[in-house]
């Protein structure tokens, strides 16, 4: 299928719906080790993204870049610059006619943007702990097509999310808790898993 504006918009609308349903859960996770705002902030941002008119964009990448700018301007906190940078980079590397390998490259451009902006590496109890193994799994299965690659990515993302539970946070507000951050699931890893699961439902 073409990864056009309609596909990108379907992905964003699905993600916005999941965030809306889980805003309370994400905020509760954030209350335990952060500052109790992740769900509400993401919900505010994704509602603004969902309100964009897809027909105003010629290409999927243009739409996603606008989604990124919208998140930067509406979310605040750390999530705004991180998710915003992700979509700005994904949109910049997006081509409506790309194949599975091309989509993998676009998603990785987004991860690279997150790492650059947030300076986190794997093992520090952040969204990178879910997204990084997800994209490794994607690349390993890219030869089997977009559907198989995204399904593998979603599975690895969820596993990475679950693996954040015992970790001690080294980045973000949870890092101030030191050892007390262990035993809690990272909210950013949780929301990014929702994003990749939505990708697998809509881009395959």
């Amino acid at each position, binding site marked *: 299928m073409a990864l056009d504006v309609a596909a990108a918009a379907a992905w964003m609308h699905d993600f916005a719906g999941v965030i809306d349903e889980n805003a309370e859960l994400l905020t509760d996770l954030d209350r335990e080790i952060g500052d109790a705002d992740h769900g509400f902030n993401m919900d505010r941002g994704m509602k603004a993204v969902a309100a964009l008119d897809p027909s105003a964009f010629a290409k999927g990448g243009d739409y996603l870049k606008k989604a990124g700018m919208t998140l930067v301007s509406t979310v*605040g906190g750390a999530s705004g610059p991180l998710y915003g940078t992700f979509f700005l980079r994904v949109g910049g590397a997006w081509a409506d006619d790309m194949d599975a390998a091309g989509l993998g490259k676009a998603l990785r451009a987004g991860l690279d943007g997150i790492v650059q902006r947030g300076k986190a590496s794997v093992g520090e109890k952040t969204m990178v702990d879910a997204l990084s193994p997800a994209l490794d799994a994607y690349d390993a299965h890219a030869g089997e097509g977009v559907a198989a690659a995204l399904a593998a990515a979603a599975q690895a993302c969820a596993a990475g999310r679950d693996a954040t539970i015992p970790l001690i946070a080294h*980045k973000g507000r949870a890092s101030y808790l030191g050892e007390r951050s262990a035993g809690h699931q990272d909210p950013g890893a949780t929301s990014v898993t929702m994003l990749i699961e939505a990708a697998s439902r809509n881009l395959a």
Partner: protein
Amino acid sequence: MKKLINAVDDVVKDSLFGVEAAHSDIVAVDHDNNVVYRIDAPVANKVGIISGGGSGHEPLHGGFVGLGMLDAACAGEIFTSPVPDQMFAADKLVDGGRGVLHIVKNYTGDVMNFDMAAEMAAAEGIRVESVVVDDDVAVQDSLYTAGRRGVGLTVLLEKIVGAAAEEGKDLDYVADLAKRVIANGRSMGMALSGCTVPAAGKPSFELADDEIEVGIGIHGEPGRERRQIGTAAEIAQMLVRPILDDLDYRGSEVIAFVNGMGATPLIELYIMYNEVAKILQAEGVRVVRNLVGNYITSLDMAGCSVTLLRADDEMLHLWDAPVVTAGLRWGK
């Protein structure tokens, strides 16, 4: 949750309308961007000083906008960094031709959003310098954390740096001064209770009647450790000792700041100030100026923080200089 609000979603907006209504002789508010700015901005030939952060810390930052302190303050959602568009709007409002200093508290989100704003301002030809306040000694291991948080020192910094800008100092000078203040200030806080973010509707953490949380920040996040409550004298030790262990203040002149977290009455803050002053006197630290009150709060959290700033003659002169803001006002 019991709060004096109209609607959860309108807390920041409604409060900014109130600030504008109460202090229209000092500030105006850009309601599209939630920016509080001096009514005479941009002040020609003066370095602009802006700050900002999540709301819920009032009077910080909007209450410190006015002559001798900030030119503008960007209000984020409760405990959430403002977005880059807000700081960029503030930069344009206050740039009087000599550049703008961004005062950023060291939180992951604040640093990222201010960075993006500085990039936008640079693209527009506005010269921006940024300083990051990180005075919280509760964060012991900066290597494995996001670094020390910006807390009480921010108030003293904004006063001192604002006075220097008012006297006509240039951007490089003001930025260097800010870094000197940051290098010489340390803070430590504690909570008697958590606080309730309106959108969350429940307290950030719960403490038993005999428990306190030591080493808190200003966002309702739990601290480093939970301890049994003690007397004010004992709690003053818990706060002052880690500060003195971190930076040697003996023989120095300091500005001592006892700050309330929002729900602690002044009668208790003065008890704490007295205990803090006794410890400092015994340690040979000379308190030459002080500030006691609720200046950088955490919504309805009960508790307090202590900040010490080793101040040289220039800092003391700038501390004494006139200031006319909603939160601090003297000398004019």
